[in-house]
């Protein structure tokens, strides 16, 4: 049993880190732009496809493909913001939410039409290898996912904390008008936020696509879960998103360990409601919840 618990602790950490990449981008867009982007999952799916095509069709190195995916989908995200969300800048929360659902339908069905519904497997360089941690074996694949996620989150944290763009992002999040008065180009910042969010989701898609499989409907659940995690952690809070992702990862793992897998979804929602009952703005919420 103790070995199973150690395994579960590691499994939960990996699941949590995967959710974290999705949730951080989602929360950035919400926290700064006040847009609930339910097409987030489709950007993740596009990332999975982009990585698949580069790795398995054009034989590009997996890690190079991930970086390329980050950039390509990031740029795509930038233009999505310009074309769809910029004109909706003054629309209500519900209207942008519905527009994002329309976008999600459009992207997923277009990919379905163009690429077909077949599942695809991304070849991962170290597949099948594993190392021993605390007496249990963990696959190299998962460790790479974990490390890459940690690296990206730290990198993002560093950018936000210390760079000029990061400061502008934070200023915009805290007070958009005041940031504009400082000379921050708000339109550009919004585009950058969307690009970062899309890029992170796309990398998550590539990483998870390699862990699982890639297909046009793969984005639906992770997109939904990112939404719930972000609410759990507190809308707009990056730290909250990370913590929410871990809680969610562990909740799922321990539901499987002690109850049954099929209760995962139910347990997730119940945790959400319980957390909100005791902390109505989410774990780290309350700062930017306009």
């Amino acid at each position, binding site marked *: 049993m103790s070995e199973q618990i150690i395994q579960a602790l590691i499994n939960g950490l990996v699941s949590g880190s995967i959710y974290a990449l999705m949730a951080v981008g989602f929360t950035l867009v919400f926290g700064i732009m006040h847009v609930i982007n339910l097409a987030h999952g489709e950007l993740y799916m596009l990332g999975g496809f982009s990585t698949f095509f580069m790795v398995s069709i054009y034989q590009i190195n997996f890690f190079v493909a991930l970086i390329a995916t980050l950039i390509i989908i990031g740029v795509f995200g930038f233009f999505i913001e310009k074309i769809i969300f910029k004109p909706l800048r003054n629309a209500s929360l519900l209207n942008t939410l519905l527009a994002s659902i329309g976008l999600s339908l459009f992207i997923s069905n277009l990919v379905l039409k163009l690429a077909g519904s077949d599942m695809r497997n991304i070849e991962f360089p170290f597949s099948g290898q594993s190392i021993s941690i605390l007496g249990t074996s963990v696959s190299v694949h998962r460790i790479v996912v974990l490390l890459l996620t940690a690296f990206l989150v730290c990198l993002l944290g560093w950018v936000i904390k210390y760079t*000029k763009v990061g*400061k*502008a992002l*934070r*200023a915009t999040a*805290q*007070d958009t*008008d*005041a*940031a*504009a*008065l*400082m*000379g*921050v*180009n*708000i*339109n550009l910042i919004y585009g950058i936020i969307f690009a970062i969010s899309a890029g992170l989701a796309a990398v998550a898609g590539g990483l998870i696509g390699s862990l699982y499989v890639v297909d046009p409907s793969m984005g639906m659940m992770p997109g939904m879960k990112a939404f719930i995690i972000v609410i759990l952690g507190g809308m707009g809070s990056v730290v909250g998103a990370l913590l929410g992702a871990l809680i969610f990862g562990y909740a799922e793992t321990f539901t499987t360990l002690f109850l049954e897998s099929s209760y995962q979804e139910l347990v997730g929602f119940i945790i959400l409601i319980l957390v909100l009952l005791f902390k109505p703005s989410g774990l780290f919420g309350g*700062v930017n919840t306009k």
Partner: protein
Amino acid sequence: MLNIQDLCVNYEKNQVIKGISMEVKEGEIVTLIGANGAGKTTLLRTISGIKSSSSGSIEFMGNPIHKMPSHKIVDLGIGHIPEGRRVFPEMTVKENLEMGAYRRKDSKEMKKELDHIFELFPRLKERISQRAGTLSGGEQQMLAIGRAIMLRPKVYLFDEPSLGIAPLVIAEIAQMIKRLNEEEGATILLVEQNANLALKLSHRAYILETGKISLEGPSEELANDDRVQKIYLGYE
């Protein structure tokens, strides 16, 4: 220096500013007095490019700026200290000041500027790594002014600097505004509800009533005007 012609601004379907023409000359302190909801804040926001106008023009040193995005307007040298201070609450005092110099490229000059501001407001230096949200109202106002000075703008737009601030600190801030004008030659457009203070500080004044200018002239003259005394200065 700042020239506004027939400016109209709408919120949704309601016209808030209904054709304003006014001028601020170099080296002047001009004040804009009016009741709540007269459109003062909207006017300043329109000058900074946060709000777009529906017709009319704004010229700054010969450049038409009414169609410019706000970051370009900042580049031209307009510093806006918004109503309610609007400091970035989750950032430290230092970070807030650095944000003020966001458009400036010369980092060496910036250091000097910081020292200068700490000289002007020694209290900010004491709180340099404190989060701005934890400062008192007066300190936040100082920070907001300091933040604007970081940019070295040619024109300062002050929006209700005395609002919600302890009377002692108001005097200090008024002093600062005067110093900026006299010692550094800054041009200032001041929006104030506290007409008494504003008229004392300024050279010229405009009176704004429901989106229109109802009266204008040198501040001293206006301070002696019957109507102004009755409505804005509270004399019986």
